[in-house]
């Protein structure tokens, strides 16, 4: 193993980290807002909203992210109507296309996670709040969301990690994030193994930090839960 080369790879890959984090961070932020809206639409009891939400999740969860990215990056520009709108300066940039694809995609998965969290809130908890005179936004903010979040966070933690990895697809539309730079290094050096080992290690390091942060968040949100609530299985 050529450690000097590994180190060089590491140094050349470092500038890709901000782009990777930016894509993951912003798409998760936008996606989460959409996910909450989609989940609430799905549970609203209003037929039109419910079906919109179902259809959205079906389409964006049922097609590959790469296909969605291609459709947005290569597809939207085909429509003259879109090229004439104020959106065109954004939609012709690979960065904004990727951010859009990632956001729309994570919104679909996030909606299902948020929906699961909302459904897990016991009816009695909501009833107790109503009986005290809470309703609407106050009820959601103080009782429903905090409890739904506790349930949803473990699953959402996985979604965060999936999104960090999904940013690597941005390389196919020419963005120079971690994987994009890695490709460039390989085409210069023809040493795929070393480059990808270093790139993989960087992803792993990022996700290690995220895993710890999510675990910390879980403990913060559920201080009443024991660290190890399930009894161990009896020995066979």
């Amino acid at each position, binding site marked *: 193993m050529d450690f000097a080369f590994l180190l060089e790879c590491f140094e050349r890959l470092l500038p890709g980290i901000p782009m990777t984090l930016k894509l993951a961070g912003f798409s998760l932020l936008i996606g989460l807002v959409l996910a909450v809206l989609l989940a609430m639409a799905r549970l609203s009891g209003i037929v039109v909203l419910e079906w919109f939400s179902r259809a959205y999740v079906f389409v964006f969860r049922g097609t590959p992210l790469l296909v969605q990215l291609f459709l947005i990056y290569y597809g939207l520009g085909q429509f003259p109507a879109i090229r004439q709108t104020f959106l065109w300066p954004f939609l012709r940039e690979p960065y904004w296309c990727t951010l859009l694809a990632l956001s729309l995609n994570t919104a679909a998965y996030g909606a299902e996670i948020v929906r699961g969290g909302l459904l897990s809130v*016991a009816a*009695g*908890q909501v*009833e*107790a*709040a*109503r*009986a*005290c*005179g*809470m*309703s*609407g936004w*106050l009820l959601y903010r*103080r*009782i429903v969301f*905090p*409890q739904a979040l*506790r349930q949803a966070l473990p699953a959402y933690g996985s979604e965060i990690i999936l999104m960090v990895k999904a940013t690597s697809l941005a390389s196919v539309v020419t963005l120079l994030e971690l994987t994009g730079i890695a490709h460039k290094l390989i085409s210069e050096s023809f040493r795929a193994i070393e480059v990808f080992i270093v790139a993989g290690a960087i992803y792993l390091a990022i996700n290690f930090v995220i895993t710890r942060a999510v675990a910390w968040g879980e403990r913060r*949100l*559920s*201080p*009443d*839960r024991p660290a190890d609530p399930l009894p161990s299985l009896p020995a066979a």
Partner: protein
Amino acid sequence: MKEAIRVKNLTKRFGALDVLRGIDLAAHEGEAIAILGSSGSGKSTMLRCINLLEIPTGGDVIVAGEQIAFKEKGGARLPADRRQVDRIRSELGMVFQSFNLWSHMTVLQNVMEAPVHVLKRPAAEVKEEAMGLLAKVGIADKAGHYPSHLSGGQQQRAAIARALAMRPKAMLFDEPTSALDPELVGEVLRVIRGLAEEGRTMLIVTHEMNFARDVASRIVFLDKGVIDAQGTPAEMFNGGGSERFRQFTAKQNA
């Protein structure tokens, strides 16, 4: 004496099932009314109609002189004004069979939550009052604990403190001891008895016959969705009441 709660010709139907078939009842200030009846008689439903956790199919609910307004929408009857419902609910303290303490908050936070966020009272003042209420129900030492770390009896006493913190005009108890282990029933009943002795207006749905006899100022017996008999405990338990009521008590004591 003034009426704290009055229901007029209250009816409630679930699908084809008539659960309440015309209830007329007035609770005067300071009265502790025990509502008895076999399961399915509609006693919990009646209580839940008073604070609109169930929407009555027909009839009126009047709390402290204020009548709850309804409107018709698509053949369904709905409260006309959500803010009125919220306000009336905040004037009634509800205690549930399964406690329903908010699991993500400590006991103290549970008690402070609604006074601070619904009534918008200053937190410092509410905290002092909340600690006083927790001391009153005997769990001041549990203020910082989460509900899941408390026994059922402690949780129910915390729930009573939570309801009292709203300074309610009347308390509604929906089978407050039915979910408790037998040895924990006493500690909760003692707290409720104390409230009755303070002269609080209360409606108590219960299966605890002896408790009802000792504590209630009036017994109301529901059968098949109507008030079958009512009277003071002395009247009801000394050969009064109805034929159904005597059968009911005989079965309970058997």
